[in-house]
């Protein structure tokens, strides 16, 4: 996996905290935890973005409602993002085609920003109808994949995740765990798959980038020996 390294020679080629971590499983756990927290954070922020639309005033209530009503949502999102973020590099390795396209942190940040932007658009922009909204978001999501991923495995995994997550959401809604304020397609919002797809791509991107440190460490070690 040493060839997975790009030529970007960051100053922190291997921070002391990374090089001290030699065991692969410990590394895996660290990556998982990092991904989990990123997922939780994004879930909180995006949730806030989504409910903002129906909220008029009084932030204290908003904050309270976030942390009380659906406390299980951020952990779920965190877990899911950890799984996705670990799955992407794993699949890359198994397919034997390491992902080399734009492997640098700036690109990852750009990807995250675009993902937040997609959410922002879905929450804030007034669309004429839901089909337009869904189509626009789908186009944006595909654009995200094409701009930052461009791998077949990434696309396939993203579609799979989107499908799975939509089914899970549907089940949750059917069982009355929660519901949407204005459902337009089988009790959920029709743009959900697009968001899930974009989220999968984004988390996979982050996961791959994190996995590169592991590759670097391994490369370093093999270098020293």
């Amino acid at each position, binding site marked *: 996996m040493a060839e997975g390294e790009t030529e970007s020679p960051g100053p922190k080629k291997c921070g002391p905290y990374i090089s001290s971590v030699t065991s692969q499983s410990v590394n895996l756990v660290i990556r998982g935890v990092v991904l989990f927290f990123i997922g939780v954070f994004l879930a909180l922020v995006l949730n806030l973005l989504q409910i903002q639309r129906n909220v008029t005033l009084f*932030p204290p209530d908003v904050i309270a409602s976030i942390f009380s009503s659906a406390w299980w949502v951020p952990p779920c999102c965190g877990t899911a993002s950890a799984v996705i973020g670990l799955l992407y590099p794993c699949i890359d390795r198994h397919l034997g085609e390491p992902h080399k396209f734009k492997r640098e942190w*700036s690109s990852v940040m*750009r990807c995250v920003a675009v993902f*937040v932007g997609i959410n922002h658009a879905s929450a804030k922009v007034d669309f004429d109808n839901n089909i*337009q909204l869904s189509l626009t978001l789908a186009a944006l999501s595909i654009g995200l994949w094409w701009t930052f991923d461009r791998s077949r495995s990434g696309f396939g995994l993203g579609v799979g995740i989107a499908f799975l997550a939509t089914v899970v959401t549907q089940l949750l809604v059917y069982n009355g765990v929660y519901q949407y304020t204005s459902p337009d397609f089988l009790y959920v919002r029709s743009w959900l798959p697009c968001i899930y797809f974009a989220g999968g791509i984004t988390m996979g991107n982050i996961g791959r980038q994190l996995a590169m440190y592991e590759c670097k460490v391994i490369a370093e070690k093999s270098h020293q020996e």
Partner: protein
Amino acid sequence: MTLTERLREKISQAFYSHGLLCASYPVPIVLFTGLCILACCYPLLKLPLPGTGPVEFATPVKDYAPPPADPDHRPGEPSERPEWYVGAPVAYIQQIFVKTSVSPWHKNLLAVDVFRSPLARAFQLVEEIRNHVLRDSSGTRSLEEVCLQVTDLLPGLRKLRNLLPEHGCLLLSPGNFWQNDRERFHADPDIIGTIHQHEPKTLQTSATLKDLLFGVPGKYSGVSLYRKRRMVSYTITLVFQRYHAKFLGSLRARLMLLHPSPNCSLRAESLVHVHFKEEIGIAELIPLVTTYIILFAYIYFSTRKIDMVKSKWGLALAAVVTVLSSLLMSVGLCTLFGLTPTLNGGEIFPYLVVVIGFENVLVLTKSVVSTPVDLEVKLRIAQGLSSESWSIMKNMATELGIILIGYFTLVPAIQEFCLFAVVGLVSDFFLQMLFFTTVLSIDIRRMELADLNKRLPPEACLPPAKPVGRPARYERQLAARPSTPHTITLQPSSFRNLRLPKRLRVVYFLARTRLAQRLIMAGTVVWIGILVYTDPAGLRTYLAAQVTEQSPLGEGPLASMPVPSGVLPASHPDPAFSIFPPDAPRLPENQTLPGQQPEPVGPGESIQDGPVPEVTWGPEDEELWRELSFRHWPTLFSYYNVTLAKRYISLLPVIPVTLRLNPREALEGRHPQDGRSAWSPRGPAPPGLREAAGPLGPGGAPVPGDVTLYKVPAWAPSADGSIWSLELQGGLFVVGRSSGRLEVWDAIEGELCCSSEVSSSGITALVFLDKRVVAARLNGSLDFFSLETQALFSPLQFRGTPGRGSSPSSLQSGSDTVACRLTHTVPCAHQKPITALKAAAGRLVTGSQDHTLRVFRLEDSCCLFTLQGHSGAITSVYVDQTMVLASGGQDGAICLWDMLTGSRVSHMFAHRGDVTSLTCTASCVISSGLDDLISIWDRSTGIKLYSIQQDLGCGASLGVISDNLLVTGGQGCVSFWDLNYGDLLQTVYLGKNSEAQPARQILVLDNAAIVCNFGSELSLVYVPSVLEKLD
């Protein structure tokens, strides 16, 4: 393919020559680019600054009409109206600005007197305003019809519950601090404490409760113990839903007539419309901050990749400048061509940056840096540019393509975003080519120079006597220390400057000057200063007091020396004179004013205690609301969950009200605890003062005097008259008819037992307790009957002795055994019709349209208390064995009273419109109102538990079967509710013919029967099943 090849060739060639140009003339090109940026950004000056401050627009009052809802303005007409000025405003705000002072001021008056009685006048004013009715050809209009009706406060504001109006007109006055209850105000020993109890301790920019209720900024209110200017001003804020010019005009005229402001020069010409921007709350701030954090991470990770150059920071800065100024140029150009940005700039900015990206800049840098080092700088730049030319162009074309696709989504917001992005991309390309390339060439040149320098110094300054074996990395330290006297080459300081990275130099500079610490220190000092200054008990009030004391207008120390005798000095005949300008008496209505002196007295003898505060009205009073926090109105409306974001309100010109009080009135309003120094009543008061002292009571105001709403249909004449009231006990029930006839019916057999016609005035309410029947009549009289029967309490047998009474009321039913006898009559229990009547524990409670309740003793009909507290007619009363009395009125309020002491326990604003029915269980109070709501309140705390929304017109009647079963009447039906949860259990329809009639009254019998009153018929419903189900 050849075409592509040729194109590629051409592009590469062009870039090469461009690179040469840039590298050859760096300074002119940078200057040119800078000028371009400035020129393109110039239109931005015209854009409003991003901010959430409100925007104003004024229209003349004359011929004002709310703007039409559709925003299209006629073509050709230059629209000076702002874009937001469409549709009706959220509300019209009428401030009634009261300036009041106690004059003449006397030394014996206390500091508290400055504001106690002036504030007390607020209650009276509020009363006047509430009772104001416009009568014209189109009928009457009261305040309730035009004002903005508010519902509940937000649930998070429980502590403000008693202070802000709920379920009624939004009318704010300082009186709200005391729940608009004059008695409570008079009983309050610490007014300042009450006012300030909700003031926040810390720095606060938004409106506080005091500001909201006073309606003037705190420093203008004058409610302070230290103010030497003895004038109290406050506003009564009325919020209207609709603009009703006639009503407003009449209100203004009336108030000006009652309380004229002689020297008032307010023009009252224009309405000011204030538009509020969208507020940014925490909920919106968090995503925004997150996007910015991501943006900065992106910028950081991007610029980190710039390497192998002389100054990384400089180039990174150049890259950021490139992107940012391209965005600014984009906005500027779009504005220039007439496209005004409607999107929230702060929100889309990160996304724009991300879309434009730093990629090209980085690619350029990398390509230039990787060219052979030994080439000339010009050539390196040119080569680097031309080698990446194709990819740059391709990237740009791709991005433009993507953005164009986005343009065809036909969503306005996305289209606008794409437009900005396209212009931004193009200007970014322009800047990259001219600005960044030039900066890069300068940097590369500097690097070459630096390389030369780097090679030079070690050889130049190393003294030859040095030991050779030193490790190379100590060279600089050694060089910096001139150890040997014959070192003559470079100055150590300049040498150090040359070698240190810029970043470190900045850090050293900061460390040397301790800039950060000093800034923090200064900030802390300023902050502490602000805290001390703004603290209510702190420096500001003290300073203000000092300043006024020293100023020539300031008066002597206040109340420091009580006059021993307590009697005014003899040379004090008419101090009230000076506050009146000479032209005041030309207004004829002034004669009736309190404190107004008709006879002028020479000016020389007036002033003894220093200048009396002059109540003046200047142009600054016209728009006093400007001095309020700009969050004042949004805060007020947000309490009722009404947002003003992106909407506007219209502020009507203020109505000036001047109140002058004389010292006697100030003394009368005093609380016992205020008078630390005893004050005996003044002896020789000027007769004019005495005479005019009587306040203009609410009696002068027209009160809507019609019969209670739900009784009006019963006026329809019928044979026996409609049933107006019924009451039952055991197996008998008593019916009061509109004809004044009292009938006693047998509940089991459905037969008329006896009847009585004492007077023809309709019986509005009945009480049947023990052997007594009390009938309240429409003319306000009370008749006490006693039922004479042996077996009154066994429902199966009625074998009373017939006709024992010698009363004039005859016994009709000869065969039966029940008789009723008139025992007492209270001829004028109330001035207006009695609307509610209840008895328990030997007491009888009457409620009337004259806003009062009375408590009578049942035995001898002696009046014990008169309870005042409602501001409307009493509509319902409840009383039980625990001597707790509940009353509801047309003002929508519910009062709980202690019947032993006659004092009010609590006061709830329950309904919009009348309270129509009221009952209690052991733990809760149940009320229904004209708003078709049934509300359940906690009995001890007065907090609303929940409310049940009912069908239209069906909220009138209710009864409690058990502690958790509620029965309500509807259109021809009765419904049963679970009290604990508010669930509907069952609805029972009572036959076809009664469908049209609403159930007006409901009585619950012990044996699970319900008697309903449908207009002029009675229905008896047995509901055993419900009870069984419950058990």
